[in-house]
């Protein structure tokens, strides 16, 4: 991903550790970056707060100001959930919120954690003061739509995670934004107030009909697509693969741009292991495996090959 274009909110963080490149430089200038405009940082971050949302979900606030300052919407961190070797590998998490202090300076990040295995269970049980190694920010971020285009964000379950930072970026651009957010039941629609505070319109759906439309999130999405006006719409999707695929198919049918945020099993998050691959169609029209950690996690839905995509 050599044309990676990350537009961070702030300038280069001066608290970065001193492992910066010096080989091949002249006059003290940094060598031109190959992949990362901002060097990812590994921060031993203390848990500032943990908020239980339900039996399976919690929000962890992590003391990682340098990562918070460098993060762009849709980027992720790799969190080490054990100091030992079980589990061995880090786990990827979207940066959910950037927490700012009274002066507006980024002070912390939050992650939206869903308990599924050993690593996420540790994060579900974490207490204030616990420390976790947090590596980031990583990956290719969203491209926020600017007016007159509208932004439609489609989230399923824990797929809400990358959209709070995107909604913030869209609000600062003045882009009209709608969040389509689906879950199994009302009790699993979390933190909608974050979006309401930013002026985002909400369209909700639950499978049991306990809040919003009964059924899948495509119910309100299809209604909105049928009623949409002349303004161009840019779609963003994150959630279960069938949901993202359904959104991508509608985007294609309506000729709309669509970005999806993928979550594949990742070994390293930096492009070293080649385990998180997804297939995309290249210029030759043939499908090729690319790494979702550095070519994604945000990818152009039109280039993705959905057959065989996990999760």
């Amino acid at each position, binding site marked *: 991903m050599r044309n990676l274009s990350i537009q961070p909110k702030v300038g280069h963080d001066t608290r970065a550790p001193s492992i910066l490149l*010096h080989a091949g430089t002249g006059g003290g200038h940094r060598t031109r970056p190959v*992949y990362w405009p901002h060097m*990812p940082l590994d921060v031993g971050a203390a848990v500032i707060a943990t908020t239980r949302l339900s039996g399976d979900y919690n929000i962890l606030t992590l003391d990682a100001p340098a990562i918070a300052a460098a993060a762009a919407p849709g980027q992720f961190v790799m969190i080490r959930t054990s100091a030992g070797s079980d589990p061995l590998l880090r786990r990827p998490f979207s940066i959910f919120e950037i927490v700012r202090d009274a002066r507006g300076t980024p002070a912390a990040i939050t992650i939206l954690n869903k308990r599924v295995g050993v690593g996420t269970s540790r994060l579900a049980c974490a207490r204030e003061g616990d420390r976790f190694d947090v590596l980031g920010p990583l990956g290719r971020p969203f491209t926020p739509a600017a007016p007159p285009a509208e932004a439609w964000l489609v989230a399923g379950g824990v797929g809400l995670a990358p959209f709070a930072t995107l909604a913030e970026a869209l609000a600062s651009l003045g882009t009209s934004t709608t969040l389509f957010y689906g879950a199994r039941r009302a009790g699993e629609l979390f933190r909608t107030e974050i979006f309401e505070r930013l002026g985002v319109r909400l369209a909700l759906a639950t499978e049991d009909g306990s809040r919003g439309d009964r059924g899948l999130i495509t119910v309100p999405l299809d209604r909105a697509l049928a009623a949409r006006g002349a303004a161009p719409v840019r779609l963003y999707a994150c959630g279960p693969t069938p949901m993202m695929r359904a959104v991508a198919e509608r985007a294609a049918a309506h000729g709309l741009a669509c970005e999806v945020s993928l979550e594949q099993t990742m070994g390293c998050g930096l492009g070293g292991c*080649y385990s998180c691959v997804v297939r995309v169609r290249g210029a030759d029209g043939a499908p090729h495996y690319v790494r979702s950690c550095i070519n994604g996690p945000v990818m152009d839905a039109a280039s993705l090959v959905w057959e065989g995509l996990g999760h």
Partner: protein
Amino acid sequence: MDLTTRIGPLTLKNPFIAASGCFGYGVEYADVVDLASLGALVVKGLFLAPREGHPPPRIVETPSGMLNAIGLQGVGVHRFVEEHLPVLRGRHAVTIVNICGSSVEEYAELARILSDAEGVAALELNISCPNIKAGGIQFGCSLVGTRDVVEAVRRATRLPIIPKLTPNVTDVASFARAAEEAGADAVSLVNTFLAMAIDVETRRPKLSNVMGGLSGPAIRPIAVRMVYECRQLVSIPIIGMGGIASAADAIEFMLAGANAVQVGTANFVDPFIWTRLVDGLRAYMARHDVARAADLVGAVDLGAGARR
């Protein structure tokens, strides 16, 4: 304090080498670590042609380890030389290229191409990848095959050549000796252990390729033993690897007989491990009054009552 180590004609500034398949083509880490601070890096295995690799899932975690079946996805040697090698050269990385062939001729051809490229320090011969049907391990599991590949590459290049040995044989030391006799400058070991994991709920293998290679701390004691066995049988340098995650782990391999070590899986967990390794080795040498890291090689103290 002297951390340098010699691998045939190469002198590395320290014994820590990034392992093939765990460090991409090196360029992925160019903005993360100072590549020139590593003893060397070994790039992902290259064939002549690009390869797609296996479908996901390609990795699965196991107790203190992981299985992988990536299937040697790769850009092919030509694109590597054109796109990635200049970046590595620009960062003053000591670059070892891991090559893999489906025939003896392919290894020799890769060696010729890379001999003509500027910025290649050595070749590691992948005769041990457990995850592909044709090529690689078919040579590494036969003494004749090992000898044939090493001899063919020896004729094709003056670069140092380092066959990477598989642990999936009865007597790995005999393969080290075959490599030495055929003209290898060093050997590296071990590649991953062929392994398998099954999801008992679905009864499906956890990897799309069914089997994969086990790496990580789980394999370390077996790898140390194999390095020790090879040290008894060969005099060429040995590059040891298998689950190294700390300076102490690296020193254990050196005491068993490794002149240098490779770090793979641990780099996934901690990409900034390299400074920790160098600092840890220095601290150990200071504590034990060791002036040269090379003095640790094979310095295991078996005591009077040891059986070997």
